[in-house]
């Protein structure tokens, strides 16, 4: 209880310094569940609250975080032609991943939470936990090579325009994390598409390009590893000739599944040791996270099922047309490529922006599956569709709900 007393003692005055008090309140309620009791309504309340809900999504993402960080390093060394085995050069890959990942993670949170705290203080209410999830998602859907200033801009855009302009947590129309990504996509397309951005640590991903190390690699970690007696970062590494940084989707667009399997094995695609956005490559770990969300009832299984259904139906349809190699790719192969599963588990299921009726969730999910796959297969400019499909269906989610409510209202009126 002494910690509690200490925290109570240092509580800043609410009137004199509202911003400080909001900040204090945010951290205090993080440490201690408040002592408020029920009034006027029910006398007991469920143990579940928004903090717990949000944190469970973050917990579900942890495997993707660990793997994603390591995979940044793994992809880097594959491109450099060194340590081709997954666990070879473990410490170097981990160190490289951390050097890339930590700034992205920290900046996304500092910018996003900073804006959140500012608006909470300005409006005079407690800090809502919405950004916990957005902040955890944003680093995972960015390419590892994203420049920090672009990330800063995109997070600020998403939180201010996407959320605070609509009234804060629970009021936004579009998914915050995806909004930050779509901002990068339209404002700085080269940093998030093509075959240059998915592997970090090089000036350019083509034969003969040299590695691009900074003080953290050559100064900090190299002296640390030298001192322990491990391998160090080698500044003389070059990308071997004929190496491509393209993702499976870009290859599938050119030459279908055959072209993909020339470069990547199925188990590589399944376990995620491929280039791509940081957190979306490992299908197995995403499925584990999705199952965790379904079992804890944090995310809607209806949306996920609807999306899978939409994907299967559209693939079967495209398979029957089959005029380009990409159209002949089967639905299981589609599941193995790209970020469908990540979008399904963590993006589409955002309860605020998704359809809010149970029947609507099926429709919403189904159409994300349909539209996303059409974008993926038919669009020559950009080979992945889930971001745009989800944002589009976010826009239409209230319309879906409207028609479902109308049918309920009509049914009731007909009884009279």
């Amino acid at each position: 209880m002494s910690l509690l007393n200490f925290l109570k003692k240092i509580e800043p005055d609410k009137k004199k310094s509202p911003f400080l008090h909001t900040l204090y309140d945010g951290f205090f309620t993080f440490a201690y569940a408040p002592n408020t009791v029920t009034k006027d309504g029910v006398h007991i309340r469920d143990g579940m609250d928004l903090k717990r809900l949000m944190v469970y999504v973050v917990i579900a993402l942890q495997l993707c975080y660990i793997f994603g960080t390591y995979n940044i390093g793994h992809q880097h060394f594959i491109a450099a032609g060194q340590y081709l085995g997954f666990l070879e050069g473990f410490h170097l890959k981990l160190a490289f991943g951390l050097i890339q990942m930590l700034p992205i993670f920290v900046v996304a949170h500092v910018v996003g939470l900073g804006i959140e705290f500012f608006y909470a203080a300005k409006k005079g209410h407690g800090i809502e936990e919405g950004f916990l999830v957005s902040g955890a998602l944003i680093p995972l859907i960015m390419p590892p090579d994203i420049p920090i200033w672009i990330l800063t801009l995109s997070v600020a855009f998403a939180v201010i325009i996407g959320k605070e302009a609509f009234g804060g947590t629970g009021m936004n129309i579009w998914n915050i994390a995806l909004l930050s990504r779509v901002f990068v996509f339209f404002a700085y397309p080269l940093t998030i598409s093509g075959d240059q951005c998915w592997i970090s640590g090089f000036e350019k991903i083509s034969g003969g390009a040299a590695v691009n190390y900074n003080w953290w690699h050559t100064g900090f970690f190299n002296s640390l590893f030298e001192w322990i007696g491990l391998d160090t970062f080698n500044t003389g590494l070059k990308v071997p000739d004929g190496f491509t940084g393209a993702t499976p989707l870009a290859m599938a667009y050119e030459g279908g599944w055959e072209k993909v399997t020339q470069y990547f094995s199925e188990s590589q695609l399944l376990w995620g040791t491929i280039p791509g956005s940081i957190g979306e490559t490992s299908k197995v770990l995403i499925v584990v996270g999705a199952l965790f969300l379904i079992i804890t009832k944090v995310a809607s299984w209806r949306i996920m099922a609807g999306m899978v259904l939409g994907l299967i139906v559209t693939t079967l349809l495209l398979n029957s047309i089959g005029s380009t190699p990409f159209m002949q790719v089967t639905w299981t192969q589609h599941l193995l490529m790209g970020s469908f599963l990540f979008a399904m588990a963590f993006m589409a299921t955002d309860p605020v922006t998704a359809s809010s009726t149970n029947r609507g969730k099926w429709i919403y999910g189904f159409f994300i599956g349909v539209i996303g796959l059409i974008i993926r297969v038919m669009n020559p400019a950009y080979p992945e569709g889930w971001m745009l499909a989800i944002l589009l269906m976010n826009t239409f989610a209230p319309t879906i709900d409207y028609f479902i409510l109308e049918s309920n209202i009509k049914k009731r009126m007909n009884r009279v």
Partner: protein
Amino acid sequence: MKTIQFQPTVILFLLFSATPLFSQSETSGQNLLLTSVIAICVVLILWALLTLANNLMRIEASKHGIDTNKNNFSVFPGLADFINQKPSFTTGEKFINLTKGFDIKLEGEAKKAIETVQVNRFAIKPTDFRGMSPIPKIEVEIGQSVKAGDVLFYDKKRDTIQYVAPVSGEIVAVERGEKRSIASVVILADKKMDYRKFTTPDFTSCSREELVSFLQSSGLWTLINERPFDRVPDTQKVPVNIFISTFDTAPLAPDFNFVVSGNETSFQKGLDVLKVLTSGFVHLGLDGRSKNIPPHDAFRNTTGVKKTYFSGKHPAGNVGIQIHHVAPIKSGQTVWTLGVQDVITIGNMFLHKIYDASRIIALTGAELKSPAYVKSYIGCNVADLLKNNIAGENNRIVSGDVLSGKQVDNDGFLGYRDDQITVIKEGNDYELFGWLLPQSPRPSLSGTFPNFLYPDHQFTAETNTHGEKRAMVVTGQYEEVLPVDTYPQHLFKAILTNNIEKMEGLGILELTEEDVALCEFACTSKSPLQKILRDGLEIVKEQS
């Protein structure tokens, strides 16, 4: 038994769902064929093993003299496990199985025994009656002695409806609340009850008007609740139906099977009287939750009423939910609802010509030393009821159940329609990382608590809100616990935005506080849903 039966289904399901996955990823047709054949073989082997196990179990069972032909005695799931079977005792009656809902299991269930307590003071509170003017006309003076059934006060707006004394005794106080409104009329009870003698009309032959005016003057009218707005009924309106739920699914609620025993004839008499008053039917909602234990004969053997069995979790026992599934309220109509003990009081009037306000009350909650049933009268004093029975210091006393009951003072009085008191601990303390790592088990619908591992655990609930109020974020949560064909979240949003047409369209008139109480309990955002609903009902009432 149940768990053993479901395992093979799970295995079969997994196998079948996995088969297309294996076969699709193979490109050549031969591999597809091969994997299918292997899958079928595995299924067949499993089936053979299970059949063997099944037979062995039967042999073992017959050695122990167990009849294997009864109760679906098998390793395999029978059809009955998938289709919810009607209990056999529902013969000929309607049976409705509600799949939505949630039972909050709490510690402190009342022991099935009536204990005697000495209650000295009783009070009727005008605030218990919704829509009543704050200062009713008081017909008694302090110091005056009254008989059970004597008029205490009436509402000046509706002066024919009399509010009567539940017990005989001396008027000791007329307590006043805010703005000189009357808070309660308190009676110090006599040792021996003295009843006012009534002359009851013959309800089978007299006109409806005569019966209605008798009910008003005898105080029985105030026992009736009129939906949709939950008030003492309009004297001019004929209800289209009358509904009585004979079981309560709320946490720690009294068992009416226990309450009704000994009052069978009074209950039937009360139903007979009510039957005359409606243009439709008297509907009884019966407990069909247990497959083997039928409800009390007092309910099952009633005549002249329509019976419907309900099965499911709370709020299946709420009369509002039952109305929705039997004959939903249409716009402009009213229905009446009564509690089981109210019907008994009406019955006793026509049997014994007295106003018998006796109530069997369940004293429940984890903070009671001996939770049990007691016999007292309407409006009894809480301090007298709970004397020497409360364990801790920091408690909350609730008149009613923990979901929709009202908090009362330590020296307060039981609500007019309540037949239960719950005493739980106040949760006004801080909990380190309580939102992430709770230090005590707590009831929850969420899968983030390992509560599903202990399905029969009785929780010691506290009044802590377990979190702060937030914007509505989670969807589909209310739907899960409200077995009504509507979209509760959108209904609440319609109320908050004052959209009357949408409120009515989404069926606000079919709901009342107790129906949405479970939604409020489950709400992740800690919204005050019962209050929102009542505000909405008030808005609709003003408009109509």
